[in-house]
């Protein structure tokens, strides 16, 4: 293989592989990127066996071929070159010779045949979706995905095409739940929509995180498709395949609280600041803050033997009975940062029941936070 390529183009595309290549994998080859030159394109692949990224950019192919190089190293080298043309040529021992301006280097490589198979996605039926809409759905749910391997089915977001042909994304770690049901622009369900999507799939957190990292909101169109047990995203030259999580997502509809008359209307920023203030007195172990709701206001209170106690009352619009419950304040802050509007409604039913938080400007989403037993 021998190519001539712009440093900037190569650097931009190599960046997209970095989240997937692992430094510590037991399989050394997984820290590598496979580079393939053919026609007038350089295609690059990286995989951790669960997530695969492929991307490409135009280049001058003097001799087509393949090479496998340590992905992070290569990216660091290319990043540190001055702008201009780079020439890469493979050597007999699978190493690569890189020349650019006054720089000459030889980079260790391994046999390209050792690189794992990348899922083939050409010809796959793809469903376009507005990039900003999908990213918004991810932003509203990604923070409540479980990080606990003991419940693998909760370590991803549940993604489903509903009977009403809307797209639903739900995540929960058992302590809180986020749900958004949207009608994203450009997305259209049809008779050919795979049953798998109608049943619902679980997309692992890392896959969503990678998608967020590599997708450019202002860039090319985004589309997704399903192949075997993978969800495939395509975005310009980029293809991201994410292996779905096996298992079934719990029936969350059971735990969603019914709308009640105990709805309190609060200014989001005021509540956020009050939580941050009172949390200075919360136990660093439990993060517990108690919320007490009366028609006088919402009282936030935290105490810890090593810190003392702190209390703040914020104004609310509330007509229901007096009620209180304790929460991990971090969960409440996570929800508030996901809210777009200026006001939220908080529905505390009792000390043990799920508490509902909603953005007053966006009916299509809701957040549930479980209290702490006091």
């Amino acid at each position, binding site marked *: 293989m021998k190519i001539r390529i712009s440093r900037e183009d190569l650097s931009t595309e190599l960046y997209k592989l970095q989240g997937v290549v692992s430094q510590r994998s037991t399989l050394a080859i997984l820290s590598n990127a496979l580079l393939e030159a053919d026609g007038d394109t350089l295609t690059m692949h990286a995989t951790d066996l669960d997530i695969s990224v492929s991307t490409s950019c135009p280049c001058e192919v003097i001799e087509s071929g393949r090479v496998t190089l340590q992905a992070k190293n290569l990216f660091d080298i290319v990043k540190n070159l001055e702008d201009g043309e780079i020439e890469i040529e493979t050597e007999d021992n699978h190493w690569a010779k890189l020349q650019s301006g006054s720089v000459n280097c030889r980079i260790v490589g391994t046999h390209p045949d050792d690189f794992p198979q990348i899922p083939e996605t050409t010809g796959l039926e793809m469903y376009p979706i507005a990039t900003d809409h999908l990213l918004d759905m991810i932003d509203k749910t990604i923070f409540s995905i479980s990080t606990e391997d*003991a419940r693998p089915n909760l370590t991803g977001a549940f993604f489903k095409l509903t009977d009403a042909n809307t797209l639903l994304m739900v995540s929960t770690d*058992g302590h809180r739940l986020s749900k958004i049901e949207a009608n994203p622009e450009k997305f259209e369900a049809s008779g050919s929509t795979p049953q798998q999507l109608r049943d619902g799939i679980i997309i692992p957190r890392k896959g969503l995180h990678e998608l967020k990292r590599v997708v450019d909101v202002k860039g090319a169109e985004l589309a997704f498709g399903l192949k075997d047990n993978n969800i495939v995203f395509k975005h310009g030259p980029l293809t991201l395949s994410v292996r779905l999580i096996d298992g079934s997502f719990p029936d*969350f509809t059971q735990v969603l609280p019914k709308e009640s008359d105990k709805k309190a209307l609060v200014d989001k920023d005021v509540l956020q600041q009050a939580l941050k203030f009172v949390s200075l007195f919360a136990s660093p172990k439990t993060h517990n803050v108690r919320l007490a709701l009366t028609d006088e206001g919402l009282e936030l209170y935290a105490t810890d033997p090593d810190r003392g106690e702190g209390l703040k009352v914020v104004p609310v619009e509330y007509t229901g009975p007096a009620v209180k419950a304790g929460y991990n304040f971090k969960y409440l802050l996570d929800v508030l940062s996901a809210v777009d509007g200026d006001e939220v409604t908080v529905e505390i039913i009792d000390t043990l029941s*799920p508490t509902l938080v909603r953005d007053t400007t966006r009916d299509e989403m809701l957040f*549930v936070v479980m209290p702490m*037993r006091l």
Partner: protein
Amino acid sequence: MRIIFHMDMDAFYAAVEQRDNPELQGLPVIIGGPSKRGVVSTASYEARPFGVHSAQPMAQALRRCPEAVVVKPRMSVYVEVSRQIMEVLHTFIPVIEPLSLDEAFMDMTGTENLFGPPVEAAMAIKDAIRAKTELSCSIGIGSNKFLAKLASDLDKPDGITLVPFGNEREFIAGLPIRKLWGVGPKSAERLENLDLMTIGDIAEADISWLRERLGKSYADHIHALANAQDARSVNPSRGRKSVGSETTLFDDIQGVEAVKKVFREQCESVARSLRKKNLRASGVRLKVRYSDTFKLSTRQGPLPEPSSDSMALYEAGCALMDTIDLESPIRLVGAAAFDLNDGDEPAQIDMFTTQDRRKTETLEKTLDAIEEKFGRKVLRASSVRKKD
């Protein structure tokens, strides 16, 4: 200034055996598994001059001291004696941090008016332990935990050592580096290669020179200790990290169902201990020992929410069973709860745990109360009750 005591029982397991079996008194006694593959867990003072010490392979110990009497450990007895000892310590001071069955830190700051000068207080503690258990211990006294622990080892058995307040650095300067907390044989060798032989050598070494050679955090750690500085406080809650129960079975068992049955009983017992101590666990551990290889295998995982209910422990434990070999013959099954919180601390509620499940905790508490009144095993969950 703080006054910290470190109480360390003398050859604890061996001393308990010699107390309970007078014919062992004066003989070299080694506590450990009878198999030649085992290791020494404790050697009596009679065995130590032969070069027998704990953690040594049993075969080597017996080569050095062929006449030693090897006694199989009776953990349940040691646990009970340990409980008595800690109870005695609690009659002196509430701030106790047990390190193991036979060691504890006590923060004795400000007790002079109650118990007199530190050495007198230490004598009173030793007398009280001897009166209750007929066993001896050594006590180290210092202005921090490190000094107290180091001191308790300087005059063993049956000694009291006080690191003079105000002259701590000088007192420890001449001691070998191995006496520093966190310096094992490997790191000792490394330090000796740098010509650091005594604690004083490290105290006087230039800190940036040390950091370059040992890495920042380790250098800072031993440099502080060598200068007799240790800010860690005596932490009573650190004492207990897990609550466990295990049985060596009369007959080997095999298969998931058989293991589940024993594990269920262990969970009952663990949950009962948790409730008795007003603790809740957030994690459960399953432990099995295989008959053929004697190897121990463990798996652990989180509970959906902190609990002291046996079913919650059991179900979380069963979820771990498909990742462990249960088909080979098994001679021991154990359960342990870890990640312990005070039962009065706020506990995060799990969305998918039903209210019914929470009721079993209340139910089990009620059963505890009944058992307390009418004795053990009057009432048990039907899955645990043995067939007559």
